């Protein structure tokens, strides 16, 4: 039971890290990143592949963050010229292309067969102790991430990106170049996703392209929309609800007779869709959002 709770905790924290990245990008800056899972995948595969080469895991994680950030750079350059809705389509396309590349380049990623046996963190500790150590590490990284986002939000940089979200023309009129800040935000947010991907790969120890479908992006969107857009507390609360929802739907399948795993997958997708619509229509500010504003 403890092992199970810790396992859920680890996955939930991975989603918190993903949500923090998206909170920075969408919540604070207003970038509609529909391709978050692409950076998550880049992080996961980078770290796993390096670990297979015997690179120390700390360096693997750092490389995952850096490479995911670098991958965001060209997307950011393109985004300079694009309106919000086009940016959403481009990022969505980007994440699909990442998945196609991972599926096709078998020499590197072994394609749909995936990479089994990704080294665990703290393998030498063994068993439950190792799991606790993983949990402590990811908790520390998450807290560091939360601290970073809070610092960013409170800094002049943070006020500027929020101004970009609220009125880009005004920012331009004040002589600031919104594009530069958008790129920086995109790269940092992608690095968060990369770190999350590395934790995911080394915790699950088996990665295949099918784990990196756009649905994951919208899990994260659901988390931040439910929790409250643009708030760090919202990202955390939203991820917790998301985790309850994902695990709850698994239990439901065990309890309900005659419901197959594929049916449950459908129900899960449907519930995500339904919740997205409901929250967008009736509570766009999320559960933790500002209750004074509509």
């Amino acid at each position, binding site marked *: 039971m403890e092992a199970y709770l810790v396992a859920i905790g680890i996955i939930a924290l991975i989603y918190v890290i993903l949500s923090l990245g998206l909170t920075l990008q969408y919540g604070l800056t207003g970038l*509609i990143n529909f391709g978050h899972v692409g950076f998550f995948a880049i992080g996961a595969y980078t770290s796993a592949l390096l670990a297979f080469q015997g690179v120390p895991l700390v360096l693997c994680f750092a490389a995952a963050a850096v490479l995911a950030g670098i991958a965001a750079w060209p997307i950011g350059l393109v985004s300079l*010229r694009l309106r919000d*809705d086009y940016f959403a389509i481009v990022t969505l*396309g980007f994440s699909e292309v990442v998945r196609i590349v991972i599926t096709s380049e078998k020499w590197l990623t072994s394609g749909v067969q995936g990479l089994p046996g990704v080294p665990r963190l703290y393998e030498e500790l063994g068993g439950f102790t190792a799991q606790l150590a993983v949990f402590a590490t990811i908790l520390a990284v998450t807290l560091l991430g939360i601290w970073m986002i809070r610092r960013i939000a409170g800094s002049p940089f943070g006020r500027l990106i929020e101004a970009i979200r609220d009125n880009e023309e005004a920012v331009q009129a004040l002589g600031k170049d919104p594009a530069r800040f958008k790129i920086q935000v995109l790269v940092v947010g992608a690095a968060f996703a990369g770190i999350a991907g590395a934790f995911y790969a080394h915790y699950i120890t088996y990665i295949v392209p099918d784990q990196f479908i756009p649905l994951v992006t919208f899990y994260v969107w659901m988390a931040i929309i439910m929790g409250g857009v643009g708030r760090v507390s919202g990202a955390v609360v939203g991820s917790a609800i998301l985790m309850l929802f994902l695990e709850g739907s698994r239990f439901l399948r065990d309890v309900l007779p005659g419901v197959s795993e*594929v049916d449950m997958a459908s129900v899960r997708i449907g519930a995500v*869709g*339904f919740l*997205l*619509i409901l929250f967008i229509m009736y509570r766009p500010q999320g559960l933790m959002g500002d209750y004074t504003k509509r």
Partner: protein
Amino acid sequence: MFYAQLLVNGIVQGLVIGLAALSITLVFGIARFPNAATGDFMTFGAFSALTAHQATGSILFGGLGAIVATGLVSLLAYWAVFRRLADRSVVALLVASIGIGFLLRAVLGVVFGHGQQVFQVPLTRPYVFNGIRVMPLDLQLAAVAALALALVFSLLYLTPIGRQMRAVADNRDLARVSGIRPGRVMVALWLVAGGVAGVAGMMLGIKTIVTPEFGWEMLLPAFTAAILGGIGSPVGAVAAGLILGVAQELSTPFVGFTYKIALAFIIMLAVLLLRPRGLFGQLEGAR
């Protein structure tokens, strides 16, 4: 000769993309947001056509079923969701359209299961023109697509409601002060957008295998064609769809089957950067 054959194969694929892009471009032009549920509208059309086809044994009735059922679903999505978000930001509409797509996919998955379904169409011998093989089925599909396009374009360019739709796409405020009622235009828009996506879905379903996810995978090529053709330009969407379909087929020997979709992405980026108004689009400020 080999490439000529690929070109012919690309045309039917291109018509599918073109119809889907037509649906996207109409919604983008008039309701002003990229409808990410278009792919799932296609899936819905394919399953409706499959059901109608199994019941009647006729491709024509299958197509009619796809048009009517998908048009109604699309109208329902407008009435229940998009209508209420009309004065909100584009993000709200975009996220809501993703939600509707997921919801449709879930319903189809539960009702029809996740097995692969195929249209039972009789196998026929291809016609051979100068060594290029053309399947009679492809000709029929091309005819269906041509018919659907003829209907949509005559609706858009020959009827009062079509003129009103184009007026709203052109300048919403001006249309409104000219006494055009937005409600009726929107109803017409969503019926047409759904019906067109439904036909595209049926065609894709006949050419490939129907699964609850298969329409979603067409979304990227369809968006690319809509952007390449110029957002809001129906002729452009269809032309760009054909170009893209042929380009994808012609590129297959070089880049392989799986990179077809990546090609669409590259083309989309190139168009957005080099010529954001596309082939036929009007200048529309900053993208």
